[in-house]
C-alpha cells in the first residue's frame, strides 16, 4: 500500500483538485431538493398569486443554474479522478515491465507466463478500480450523508429516522451479497479454469483422444463439468440478482414512509408539501451512494489483494545483475522507487548465485567505498576463458558442467561437440550470463564477466540460440533487433540486407510479396525452421560483436545452404572470436580447437585431425556422420 501512495503522490495536485470538485458536486447536488422545496412552499404560502409564481420561478431558475454549474464540475471531477487511476495504472504497468526486463532467465523458467500476464493485466486493473471508482464513492458517500441528514433532521427529525431506516439494512444486505458475490465469482473462475484445463488437454492430446475413440466419453466428461459450472454460475446469479431489486425497493420504501408518516404530518400542518418533495429528493440521492458503499468494500479488498501480488513481484531481486557501482540503465529507472525491504524474495527460494569471484567482491567493496565507481570497461578483443567452471541449474544439485577449463584467444574459432545433454548449451549460456556458474569464473578479456555492465557484456556477444525465437514484427525489425536504431536509419536498410545475405536468407525474403516488411508469426507468414534459423543468424551478424556464439544454429538448414553460410561466415569471422556447437562435423572440422564434451566434462580437445587420430567419441561421431551422408546420397 505504501507503494500505491508513492504512485498516487505524483498526481496529488490533480487528484486533490478532482476530489475538491467531487465535494463541490456533492454539495451542489444537495442544494437542489431544498430549492425545489422552497419553490413548492412559496406557491402554497404566498399571499397572492403573482408573487407565489414569481418566487417559485426564481427558485426554479436557481436550480437550473446549479444544474449547469454542477454538470461542468461533475464532468471535471469524474474524469480527473478516473484519469489519475489510469495514469497510475500506466506507471505501475511500465515499472513492472521494466522490472521484468531485469529479472534473469531462471525466474522465467519458474513462473508460468499466464501468471505474470495476469498480474500485469488483471491485478493492475483491480488497483486502478480502487483508485478510480473506489475513491470516488468512498468520498462521495459521507459528503452526501452529512448534507442530506442535517437538512432532513432540520425539517423533521422523526421522519428522517423513519425514512432512512431501510438504508442501513440495505448496506448490510449489499455487503452480505457482495461477499457471496465474491465467493461465487471465485467459484465460477475456478470452474472456468477447470474447463480450460480439460479443453487444453483435449486440444494438445487430440491424437490420443482420436486414436482411442474417446471423443464421446470426453464430451460426457465435459458435459458433467459444464453442468457443475452451470449450477455454480446460477448460484452466483442468485446473489447478483438480489442487488438490483434491493436498490430499487429501498428508496421506494423510504418514499412509502414519507407518504404515510410525512403525509400525516402535512395533514396536521406540521410539514409542507415542499418538505415532502425535499425528503423524496434526498432519499433518491442517497440510494446509489449507499449501495455503492457495499460494493466498494469488495473493490477495496480486491485492490488490496492485487497490490499485494504486485508487491510480491516487485520484491523479486534480479540475482544476475550489474556489478555494484554501475548506474541503473535509463530504461530501468522506475517512475517510483522504494527502498528494497530486507525480506526481498529470491527465485525458487534459492539464495542468490554465489559470487565467489574475488574481483566481484572487490568491485563491490570499491563501489560502496567510493559510492560511485568509474564506468566498467567494455569488451574490446573477445578473449574468452573459463577457469574451473562448474555449474548446476538453480534448484538442482546435479552438476551439468564440471571443472571446465578452457582458453579461447581473441579471434579463434572453437567448436564444441558431444551427445545430447552433454552440457554444450549450458556452457554457452554462462558467457552472456544467462546463468552464473556455481563455482569457478568466466573471463572475457581477462576480467570476470560479473565485472562488466550486463548491457556491455551482452552487446559484445552475438548469440544465436538453439531455439530460433522471432518476434511478431517485420523481418526488418527482427534482423535489426540488436541495433533497433538501424530500423529507421538511412544506411540501415543496406546493413540489414547485407546481414541477411551473409545468413543466406536474403533470397527467401526477396520472394515474399512484402519483402523485409513481411510480418512474422500469426499476423504474417509462417517461416520454416531453416528460415527462422537463418533470420536469427542474420540478427546476430548484424550485431557486429567481437564474440559470435552459434548454438547448433544451423540444424534445420540443408547441407548445401550451410556450406554457403559457412563460407560467408569465414569472411565475417576474421578477427572475431567464434564459439559454436554443431552436430554436423562438416561445420566444425575447420575450427582452431574442437572440444569434446561428455557428461559435463571435456573428454578430449584438439583439432579435427588429431581428434580423429585419437579415436573415441569424436571418431565415432565422425563415422556416423559419414554414414548419414552416404544414406542421404542413395
Amino acid at each position, binding site marked *: 500500500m505504501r507503494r500505491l501512495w508513492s504512485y498516487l503522490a505524483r498526481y496529488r495536485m490533480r487528484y486533490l483538485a478532482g476530489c475538491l470538485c467531487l465535494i463541490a458536486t456533492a454539495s451542489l447536488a444537495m442544494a437542489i431538493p431544498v430549492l*425545489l422545496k422552497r*419553490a*413548492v412552499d412559496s406557491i402554497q404560502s404566498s399571499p397572492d*398569486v403573482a408573487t407565489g*409564481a414569481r418566487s*417559485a*420561478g426564481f427558485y*426554479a431558475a436557481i*436550480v*437550473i443554474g*446549479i*444544474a*449547469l454549474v454542477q*454538470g461542468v464540475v*461533475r*464532468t471535471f471531477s469524474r474524469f480527473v479522478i*478516473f*484519469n489519475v487511476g*489510469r495514469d497510475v495504472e*500506466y506507471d505501475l504497468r*511500465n515499472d513492472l*515491465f521494466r522490472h521484468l*526486463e*531485469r529479472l534473469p*532467465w531462471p525466474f522465467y523458467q519458474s513462473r508460468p507466463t499466464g501468471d505474470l500476464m495476469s498480474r500485469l*493485466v488483471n491485478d493492475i486493473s483491480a488497483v486502478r478500480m480502487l483508485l478510480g471508482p473506489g475513491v470516488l464513492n468512498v468520498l462521495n458517500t459521507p459528503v452526501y450523508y452529512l448534507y442530506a441528514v442535517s437538512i432532513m433532521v432540520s425539517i423533521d427529525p422523526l421522519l428522517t429516522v423513519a425514512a432512512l431506516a431501510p438504508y442501513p439494512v440495505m448496506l448490510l444486505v449489499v455487503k452480505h451479497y457482495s461477499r457471496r458475490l465474491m465467493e461465487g465469482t471465485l467459484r465460477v473462475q475456478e470452474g472456468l479454469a477447470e*474447463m480450460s*484445463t480439460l*479443453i487444453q488437454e483435449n486440444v494438445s492430446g*487430440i*491424437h*490420443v483422444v*482420436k*486414436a482411442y475413440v474417446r471423443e464421446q466419453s470426453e*464430451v460426457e466428461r465435459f458435459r458433467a463439468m*459444464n*453442468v457443475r459450472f452451470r449450477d455454480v454460475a*446460477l448460484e452466483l*446469479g*442468485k446473489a*447478483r440478482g438480489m442487488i438490483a*431489486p434491493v436498490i430499487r425497493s429501498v428508496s421506494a420504501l423510504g*418514499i*412509502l414512509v414519507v*407518504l404515510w408518516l410525512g*403525509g400525516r404530518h402535512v*395533514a*396536521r400542518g406540521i410539514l409542507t*408539501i415542499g418538505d*415532502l418533495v425535499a425528503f423524496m429528493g434526498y432519499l433518491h440521492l442517497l440510494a446509489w451512494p449507499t449501495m455503492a458503499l457495499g460494493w466498494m468494500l469488495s473493490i477495496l479488498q480486491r485492490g488490496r489483494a492485487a497490490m499485494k501480488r504486485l508487491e510480491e513481484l516487485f520484491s523479486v531481486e534480479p540475482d544476475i545483475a550489474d556489478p555494484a557501482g554501475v548506474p541503473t540503465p535509463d*530504461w530501468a529507472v522506475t517512475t517510483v522507487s522504494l527502498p528494497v525491504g530486507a525480506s526481498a524474495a529470491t527465485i525458487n527460494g534459492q539464495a542468490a548465485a554465489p559470487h565467489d569471484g574475488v574481483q566481484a567482491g572487490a568491485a563491490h567493496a570499491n563501489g560502496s567505498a567510493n559510492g560511485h565507481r568509474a564506468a566498467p570497461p567494455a569488451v574490446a578483443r573477445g578473449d574468452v576463458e573459463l577457469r574451473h567452471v562448474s555449474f548446476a541449474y538453480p534448484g538442482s544439485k546435479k552438476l551439468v558442467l564440471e571443472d571446465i577449463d578452457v582458453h579461447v584467444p581473441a579471434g579463434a574459432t572453437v567448436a564444441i561437440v558431444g551427445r*545430447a545433454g552433454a552440457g554444450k548449451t549450458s556452457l554457452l549460456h554462462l558467457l552472456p550470463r544467462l546463468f552464473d556458474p556455481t563455482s569457478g569464473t568466466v573471463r572475457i578479456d581477462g576480467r570476470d564477466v560479473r565485472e562488466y555492465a550486463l548491457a556491455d557484456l*551482452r552487446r559484445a556477444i552475438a548469440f544465436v*540460440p538453439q531455439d530460433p*525465437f522471432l518476434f511478431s514484427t517485420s523481418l526488418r525489425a527482427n534482423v535489426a*533487433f540488436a541495433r533497433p536504431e538501424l530500423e529507421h536509419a538511412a544506411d540501415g536498410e543496406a546493413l540489414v540486407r547485407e546481414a541477411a545475405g551473409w545468413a543466406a536468407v536474403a533470397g527467401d525474403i526477396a520472394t515474399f510479396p512484402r519483402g523485409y516488411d513481411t510480418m512474422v508469426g500469426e499476423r504474417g507468414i509462417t517461416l520454416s525452421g531453416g528460415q527462422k534459423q537463418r533470420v536469427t543468424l542474420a*540478427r546476430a551478424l548484424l550485431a557486429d560483436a567481437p564474440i559470435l556464439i552459434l548454438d547448433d544454429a544451423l540444424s534445420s538448414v540443408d547441407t548445401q545452404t550451410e556450406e554457403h553460410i559457412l563460407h560467408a561466415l569465414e569472411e565475417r569471422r576474421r578477427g572475431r572470436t567464434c564459439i559454436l556447437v554443431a552436430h554436423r562435423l562438416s561445420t566444425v572440422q575447420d575450427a582452431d580447437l574442437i572440444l569434446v564434451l561428455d557428461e559435463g566434462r571435456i573428454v578430449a580437445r584438439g583439432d579435427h585431425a588429431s581428434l580423429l587420430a585419437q579415436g573415441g567419441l569424436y571418431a565415432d561421431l565422425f563415422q*556416423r556422420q559419414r554414414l548419414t551422408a552416404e*544414406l542421404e546420397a*542413395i
Partner: protein
Amino acid sequence: MRRLWRYLRPYQRTFWMSVAILPVISGLMLLQPYLLKVAIDRYVDHGDTSGLGRIATLFSLAVVGEFFAVYWQYYLTMVVAQHSLADLRVDLFAHLERLPQRYFDRNPVGRIVTRLTTDVDVLSEMFASGAMTIFMDALTLLGIVSIMLWIDWRLALVALSVVPVVIVTIDFFRKRARVTYRLIRERIARINSFLSEAISGMPVIQLFAHERASFAEFDEHNAAHRDANHLSNVYEAALFSIIEAVSSIAMALVVWYGSGQIVKGVVAFGTLVAFIEYIQKFFIPIRDFSTKYAVMQSAITAAERVFQLLDTPHEIVSPAAPRRVAADDPERGAVRFENVWFAYKGEDWVLRDVSLDVRPGETVAIVGATGSGKSTIIKLLGRSFDVKMGSVQVSGVDVREWDLAELRREIGIVLQDAFLFTGTLASNVTLGRAEVSDETLRATVRAVNLERFVSSLPLGYAQPIRERGNNLSAGQRQLLAFARALAYDPRILVLDEATSSVDAETEQLVQEALDRLLRGRTAIVIAHRLSTIERADRIVVLHHGVVREVGTHAELLALGQIYARLYELQYAGGRSNVGADATDDGASAGS
C-alpha cells in the same frame, strides 16, 4: 444472434416467462408515483388522513411486488442463459473433438480455449448485466411518457422538452464512445500479445541488450491504452453529468411551469410531486444505456467468433453408409497400402507410390532415417489425414469407407511417449472407459510390468496424475502407453516406439511388456529398438517417402544397402542415441 436463439429455444417457456414479467415490473414501478399523486391530492392537501393507510398499503404492495418481480425476472433470465450457454459449450466441445488434425496444427491452443471459455462468457455477461432488457427499457420510457401525458399533457410537454437535448447528447457521445471502446479493446489486446511474447522471448531481449527498445515499444502500447481510456473517461463523465443536469433541469422546469398552473388551480400539488418522481425514473434507463450498449456490442462479436468455430467443417468424417467387416472375414486384421501418394502441402510428396501388404497376425517393422515418412504412415492409418492418391485398406476395406469410430477401434495407435491426462493412474490406463473392469485393469498393469510401480504409489491406482505427467519417468510413461493399448485390445496395433532412452533395467521391462502386447495381433511398428526389428517378420525400409527394401533382418543386412547403413548408424553402436539423428520425424513432417 439468430443462431443463439436456437440454444434458447429448449428453455423458451422460462424465457417467455421472464419476458412476461418485464411489463409487470414497469407497471408496478409506474404505479408508485401515481399513488403519491392520489394521496396528496385527495387526502394530504385537504388535511384528511383517512385514506392514507389504504394508499400506503397499495404502495407497499407495489414495492414488494416490484422487488420480487425484478428478482424473478433476473433469475429466470439467468436460468435460461446458463442452461443454453452450457448446451452451447458442450456443442462446441463435441464439434471440436471431431475436427481434423489439420485444424489443431493450424490454430494455437490458447485461441481454441478462448472460444469455448472467454467468448461464451461474454455472452453470459450479456444476460447477467441485463443488457437484454435494453428493449424493455424503451418500453418503460414509453410508459412513463404516456402516463405523464395522461395526467397532464401540458406539464408533460414541458418536462419532455429536454428530451431532444438528451437524444442529441446520447447520440453524440455514443458514436464517440463506440470508437473509443473499440480502441481500448484493440489496445489492451495489443498489450496482452506484446506481453506474452516479451515474456516468452525475454532471454532473447536480454541477450541482445534490447531492453530499452522493448520497453519503449511497451510504453507506446501502454500509453496508447491509457490515452484511449482518458478519452473515454471524458466522454463517460460528460455523458453522465449531462444526463444528471438535464434531469435536474427538467424538474426545475416542471416546478416553474407547474407552480403557475397550481396557482391558477389547473394543476394539483400531487401532480407536481408525481412528475418529479417520474422524471427521476425516466433518467435511470437512459443512464444505463451506454453500458448496456457496450456489452451488447462485445457479445455480438463473441457470438460471431463462437459460431465461426461451429461452422468449421469436419473434413474427415464417416461415410453415410459405412461398410462393415464380418468378424470371421479372412481379411480381418490385414493392412494394405496400395500405391499411396501423400503430401501435407501441394506437391511436397512425403510418400510416393507406397505399397505395403501386412497379413493378419504379422509383425512388420518400418525403419528409415529422419524425414523418411514413417510417422505419416501412422497418420494415414488412423485417418488423421486422407491420402492424395491410392488407398489404405484395413481388414480389406478402404479406411474412407469405415465408420470412423469402428476403424479406430479396429486399430490401436500407440504413441509411446504417452500423453497424460489430468486424472488418476487408473483413468490414464482405461481412458475413462467404463467397460474396463478393475480385474482387466490389474491384469493389464501386471502384464506391462507396472504393478510394482503402482503399488509403490501412496494411493495406488487412485494416484493423481499431474498435468503433463511430470511425476512419471520416461520409462514409466512408455509402460503406461503399453498398458493403455493392452486394455484397449485392438486387432491391429500400430506402434510408434519411443526415442527417449531408458536405463538397462527399465529397458528389460519394456521389452517384456512389448512382447506381451504384440502377441496375437497384426502389428506395424515404427521401430527404434534393435530388439523389435530383429523380432519382426518383415522389415520395410522407407527412404525419402519410397519403399526401398523389404525383407528380414538377415536378408537386408546381406543386401548391404540402406538398411545395412541404417543398422550401423542407429542400432549397432549400442542403444545410446548420439547426435540428433534419432529424433522423431513426426514434428518436422507435420509442419
